[in-house]
């Protein structure tokens, strides 16, 4: 088992090296003469007004929250699906109940208007 994860460990470092190569190559081959105007923020030729890193629309955050609930709940369902042969019928319905609670959460978010883009 350790061997299998060793593969992933090596893979991460090698996979990072491959895209790094053309960037390093470009550093030697590409011209490099920056100036103030070139390094300005691109905004279709207009000068940018005000800071960019401002508070963003709250709606994005709410979607992220709803996602978080679903994501965590589905991860709990994976072991249930793998052990499907070993579990008795009542455990299958237990899982279904778990999904239905999830549906309840979705309906709640829906009724509360969390899924409306306003």
């Amino acid at each position, binding site marked *: *088992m350790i*061997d*299998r994860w060793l*593969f*992933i460990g*090596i*893979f*991460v470092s*090698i*996979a*990072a090296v*491959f*895209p*790094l190569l*053309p*960037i390093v*190559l*470009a550093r030697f*081959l*590409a*011209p*490099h*003469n920056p100036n*103030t105007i070139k*390094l*300005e*923020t*691109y*905004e279709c030729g207009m000068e*940018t007004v005000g800071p*960019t*890193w401002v508070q*963003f*629309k709250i*709606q*994005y955050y709410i*979607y*992220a929250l709803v*996602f978080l609930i*679903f*994501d965590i709940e*589905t*991860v709990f*369902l*994976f072991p249930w*699906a*793998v052990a*499907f*042969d070993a579990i008795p*019928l009542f455990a299958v319905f237990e*899982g*279904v109940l778990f*999904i*239905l609670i999830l*549906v309840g959460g*979705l309906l709640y978010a*829906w009724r509360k208007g969390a*899924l*409306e*883009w306003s």
Partner: protein
Amino acid sequence: MNFWENPIGFIGEAIADLMRSLHIGPEVINFVITLLSVVVVASFGLLLVIFLIWLERKVAARFQDRIGPNRAGPYGLLQTFADMVKLITKEDSIPEKADKLSFNIAPILSVVAVLLIWAVVPFAPAWIGTDLNVGVLYIAAVGSFGILSILMAGWSSNNKYALLGAFRAVAQLISYEVPMLITLLVPVLLARSMGMNDMVRDQSTWFIVLAPLAGIIFLVSSIAEIGRTPFDLIEAESEIVAGYHTEYTGMKFGLFFAAEFLHAFTVGVLFALLFLGGWRGPGAEQYQLLGVFYLMAKASIGYFIVMWVRSTLPRIRIDHMLALNWKFLTPASLAILIITAILEKAYGETSARIPALLIGNLAVVLVSWLVLRAASRKTKRERVTFKKRPVAKPA
């Protein structure tokens, strides 16, 4: 071991024998072999991109009744190399106000995120990077790196268009991850395993037959996950210039580009593995190269659908896109999961498995169609009305 039955295994054994004859310790041999297999898998993915970019341009051109690249090399095959040379020799400018560290890491991370998926792809019965017993979970986890890279790119550019693109990416990619994860559960449930190779071995009947709806939902949410038309709001060029990679130039832009193309094909590969039986086909168990051929042929089906959809449909609005996900795909995928679980427990071991599951899928399709029809009748469409204006009439 016959060379033609398993060329890579043959060469690997030869290298291991050579090292053993040089009295190198078994741990070192193991490490070197692992390293070599990593390089083979990773470079296969990256070499594939070069071909895929050409293929996609050709196919997209055909859809638009053009010829596509045909100047550089035979059939324009060398076009991508020409593009690569151009991108490498372009100036790499980093905006002054950008967050330098994450600005530079983001394009690399986007490629790494896609390449990592290939670590668990079984190309053939014996050719798999590493057969993790939590393969599907690993794919879901690694897939999230891609979202992170887009968010990093958009945020660190310190550009309003880029930031808007990143926000949209958060809303879109995160949302579509939900139905994708739930539909991933269906093949896991049918195969009783999360290992990718176990899953392929279990598909004596392809899972697309047992769970057609899950396959379709998986494909749709995957298209959204790649950020392709009709879900390309994160880089909508008519609204926010180029989205999260507005400020990127040269090879760093090229890396985002390459990652997107590879991701599109990876979706095809995953679709083939989970629903179309992966490397399964006549003779694949014996001749490994045949297995690779079958997998690639099946992956092209999904890839072609992605390209087809891309050149057919226009971009949809952000509220429609989110509504499609949360109000249709997510409930539908939950329903199909419940139906599959119950039917699989009831008929899983009997011969009625296939018809029972098919009828279950059909029932979900029917119910959702009825619900959609009822919903569309309830909501009245707003019609744009104009004031009556005097019109010139013939005398």
